[in-house]
C-alpha cells in the first residue's frame, strides 16, 4: 500500500486506506470542520451485464498533471483548506476501491460542492480508461457523465 504521505495526487496500483488518507489531510490545518469524501468502487454489473474483470489504464504524467490541476483549481475556486485525489490502475476486484477524493474545509458546504465538481472534472479531463470484461467480451468503456 503506498503511503498517504507521498503526495496529495497519486495514481497507483496498490489499494489505499481511507482512514490513513483522511488522517494525513487533517494535518493540513487545525481548522478543518468538514470533510467530504467520494469513493468510487467496482460494481458487479454494468448495463445489466455481469463483470468478470475490471481494469484501469492511464496516460502517465498527463493523468497526474490533470489531477494536480483539479486539486489546485478546486482549492482556489471553492475556498478549501485542502484536497487529495488517489486513483488506482490495473486490475480491480468487485467491491474494491477505485478512486478517492477528499475535500477539507472550515465548513461543510464548500467541501460537498468541491468534491462533486472534482469527480466530474476527473472524468472529463483525466486520461484514465476502464476496460470491462463481461460475458459479451472485453470493452473499453466510453465516458459516463
Amino acid at each position: 500500500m503506498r503511503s498517504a504521505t507521498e503526495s496529495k495526487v497519486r495514481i497507483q496500483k496498490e489499494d489505499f486506506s481511507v482512514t490513513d488518507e483522511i488522517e494525513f489531510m487533517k494535518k493540513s490545518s487545525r481548522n478543518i470542520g468538514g470533510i467530504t469524501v467520494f469513493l468510487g468502487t467496482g460494481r458487479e454489473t454494468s448495463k445489466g451485464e455481469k463483470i468478470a474483470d475490471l481494469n484501469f489504464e492511464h496516460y502517465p504524467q498527463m493523468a497526474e498533471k490533470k489531477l494536480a490541476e483539479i486539486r489546485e483549481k478546486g482549492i482556489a475556486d471553492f475556498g478549501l483548506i485542502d484536497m487529495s485525489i488517489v486513483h488506482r490502475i490495473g486490475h480491480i476486484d468487485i467491491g474494491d476501491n477505485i478512486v478517492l477524493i477528499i475535500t477539507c474545509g472550515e465548513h461543510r458546504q464548500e467541501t460537498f460542492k468541491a468534491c462533486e465538481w472534482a469527480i466530474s472534472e476527473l472524468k472529463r479531463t483525466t486520461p484514465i480508461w476502464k476496460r470491462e470484461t463481461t460475458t459479451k467480451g472485453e470493452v473499453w468503456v466510453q465516458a459516463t457523465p
Partner: protein
Amino acid sequence: MITVKYFANLKQIAGKDEERFDLGKETTLDQVWEAISQTLPQIATLIKEKKIMVAVNYDVVSLDAVVHDGDEIALLPPFSGGS
C-alpha cells in the same frame, strides 16, 4: 522526431504503444495524421470523425495545432476513469 502515443482501444487497433515520426522542426497535426494514415488508416478515420482527443505534451490541443520536434503527441479515446 515526434512521438505519437496510443491508449486503450487505440493501442489495440494500432498494435503498439507508440511510434515515432521525423517531420522536421515544425509541422501541423494534419501532417501527423497523414503520416499515421499510411499504416493505420483506421486511426486516421477516428481522428477525422473527432472521436479522439489529442494532447501535445500533456495538454489537450485543438486539431489545427502546430507541433515541434521533440513533442509528445497522445491520441486519447474518451476517458472513463473515476469508478
